[in-house]
């Protein structure tokens, strides 16, 4: 009897272990350009192969009042309103850099998924894809130049 229960548990455990997709941690550094003005809001999101928002990975900027300035992301997040407290940091001022740890599910690598960094500064432009690249085993340890407030983004697996 006891043996049966144990074996059932083992089976359940092995099934769940294989169905839960592992996340991997990546160290991600955002280096800003020398712009003047307020600190920038930078949102890191995971996009599916169709280019739709899948998940918010990190938010630099903790004052929710300005979130609607990050228009594209807000259209996604504003509806979902998932809890992002644990993945929220401060805004990044011009010339500064910030290092954060982001988690990406392993099954999104090499599958056409993209990572997007969009940036906005109070009373200045909004860049919907300041940095954006496809997630591959190569790109997650690379350096990518930005088009807007971001000079470059570097990532390495943790």
């Amino acid at each position: 009897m006891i043996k049966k229960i144990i074996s059932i548990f083992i089976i359940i455990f092995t099934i769940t272990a294989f169905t839960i997709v592992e996340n991997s941690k990546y160290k991600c550094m955002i280096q800003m350009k020398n712009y003047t003005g307020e600190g920038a809001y930078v949102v890191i999101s995971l996009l599916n192969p169709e280019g739709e928002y899948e998940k918010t990975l990190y938010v630099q900027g903790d004052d929710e009042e300005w979130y609607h300035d990050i228009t594209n992301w807000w259209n996604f997040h504003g509806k979902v309103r998932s809890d992002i407290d644990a993945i929220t940091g401060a805004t990044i001022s011009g010339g500064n850099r910030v290092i954060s740890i982001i988690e990406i599910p392993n099954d999104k690598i090499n599958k056409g998924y993209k990572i997007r960094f969009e940036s906005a500064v109070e009373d200045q432009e909004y860049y919907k894809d300041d940095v954006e690249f496809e997630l591959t085993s190569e790109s997650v340890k690379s350096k990518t130049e930005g088009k807007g407030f971001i000079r470059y983004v570097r990532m390495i697996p943790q």
Partner: protein
Amino acid sequence: MTISIWRYSHLTLAISSFVFIIIASVTGIVLAFEPISNQLKPFAIQNANTITLAETITSLKKEYEEVVSLKVDENNFLEASVITKNGQSHTFYVNPVTGKKIGDLIERASIYKWTTNLHRSLFLKSTGRFLVGFFSFLLFLITITGSILIIKRQGGIIQFFTKVVKEDFKQYYHVILGRYTLIPIIIITLTGVFLSLEKFSVLPETKISHNVDFSKTFAGKKLSFEDFDTFKSIYLKELKSLEFPFSDDEEDYFFLKLNNKELYIHQYSGEIISEQNLPWIRIVSNWSLFLHTGRGTILWSLILMFSSFSILFFVYSGFAMTIERRKKSTLPKNKINKDKAEFIILVGSETGSTFGFSIALYKALINAKKSVFIDHLNNYTSYKSANHLIVLTATYGEGDPPNNATNFLKLASKIEQPNLINYSVVGFGSMAYSDYCQFAIEVDAILNEHSKYKPVLPLFKINNQSFTDFKEWCIQWSKQIEIPLHLKQEVIKPKKQHAFTVVNKTDLNIDASFLVRLKPAKKLKFISGDLLSITPKEDTIERLYSIGKINNDILLSIKKHEYGICSNYLNQLQKNDMLNATITPNTSFHFPKKSTGVILIANGTGIAPFLGMIDANYKYIKTHLFWGGRTTESVELYSKQIYKAYDNKQLSSIHIAYSQEQKEKIYVQDLVSKEQDIIASVLKNNGTIMICGSIAMMNDVLKVLETISISKLNTPLNLQQIKTDCY
């Protein structure tokens, strides 16, 4: 002239910016709570000047898998961003010695976020920031003009912090608080302006650029970073932040920010590969932020909060003063031309109170069917039909002219008059100033020298806007010019009247005195020594009577004067008649709540408040009563109450002087002089002496008290111990 410019600017600036200033102050008060509440949390780094960066890094490295960055925040808390041994990424406050987590990051309460937005940009983003910066600058100008006004008022920069003469609550504290908060407000406004400017790229470019040459590869021995000399030589008090190298790549470096410079440090050798000092503007910016927000210090936050409260008070008191001044300063519209008038009244006033007197005189002359022209002193000119000139003027500061009289002296010596004019000058002032009525003296002198002017009366000075004194002048003057004048005091603000019922009224005694007992129709708060002001309809002049409070009733002791309008009115009152009057608190003449001994000295009807005080002396404070009357019959009006109080031990001794009972007159001061021991012991034990009655009696009593104090106690009389209410 100069004074009015400063005052004018002070007011104009205040009017144009007060809405913003109120918003900024109220939000400022709210925001001041944030650094205070943060500082009350136990996360601040202790001994920041003895712990080296190397020590902290070593303990952090032991405690965690990886350290991403380290930061000393504005509250002086050490914030570490780490990856824990089980691979979790976290940011929290750590103990710099043990490296252990001591608390989660403080999340800014949304009230502070909201208030900060309102405070710095009024929710208008850039436009708002500009406005706030601009009004902050205006507030700075208001502060400067305010200081200049204080300097003028006190008579020079050196006197800036000398005693301020207390005339009015609002005015007094406007000046007093203004001096105390001058420096903090200048700091708040200038840093505010600076912080706003920063956002508009008008300040010089402050970006630091580091040049690093990574062309040579590192060949030496890799050092463990806790052994870096740089880290060993830096203490936590200098640290702003340290970012650890992003990866093992040689081109990744330690990025160290100190209070005054930024460093790149090689992650293998520990050598400084780039070092840049912070530009001064960045340092000013840091200081501005600190001074403006009070971050990290409770004391400064409290000062900032106090200053914000003061600013609100300035707005209130400033406008209240302006409105009062406006009300007072309007002269009546002249009905005739200046060249047709026989009487010319010229007024000089800074704060406006002299206008009330001038208007009273103007109306009295009009009622006497005279042709009158009234004007400001600065508008002095020639008057073709003038026969009389009356100048009523106050003095500003140290003998300066009031702002509507600044040109008068120059004009008076220049302008010729066609006819000979009779003149009289009335000076208004306060004996508390050393230059009492100085400007009036100068006006009088210049008119005296003038060939076309002839004095009717010598210069007449009036202290503290006494209407009685002004009436006195008017009587003298009207005698001289042989025109009967009936002067009515301008009732500026009718106070709220209360209804009272007459409970009892005694018949006139031998001295024509009587007692009236009044019951307030509604419950009123008052105590013995307060004043009851009764304004008869006949002459609209307010009379003040000292109140004796007995069983919540008001007891008045009144002497009937043959022609006294008010005393006759009160004398004809019958039981159950109604009467309207106002109670004015008179805190300077209340019976002490605690005392080692009290001496009450009165003559005639001045005993009334004392009857109430004795009646309420349930603490049995040792109290001695001295009273002076004319005859033994005079005291009968009060004797029942006095002796009852004596039997109840509410009075310790009674001393009565009769001036008419024996050959030589004995007055109350003679009794005081006789009972030197009682007086001296009360004075010595820091007791209180209260005097109520005629001014003549008070002066005589004070002389006697002074003599006793000097002869028995070897010290001049301490006026703090004396309370008077005399008329």
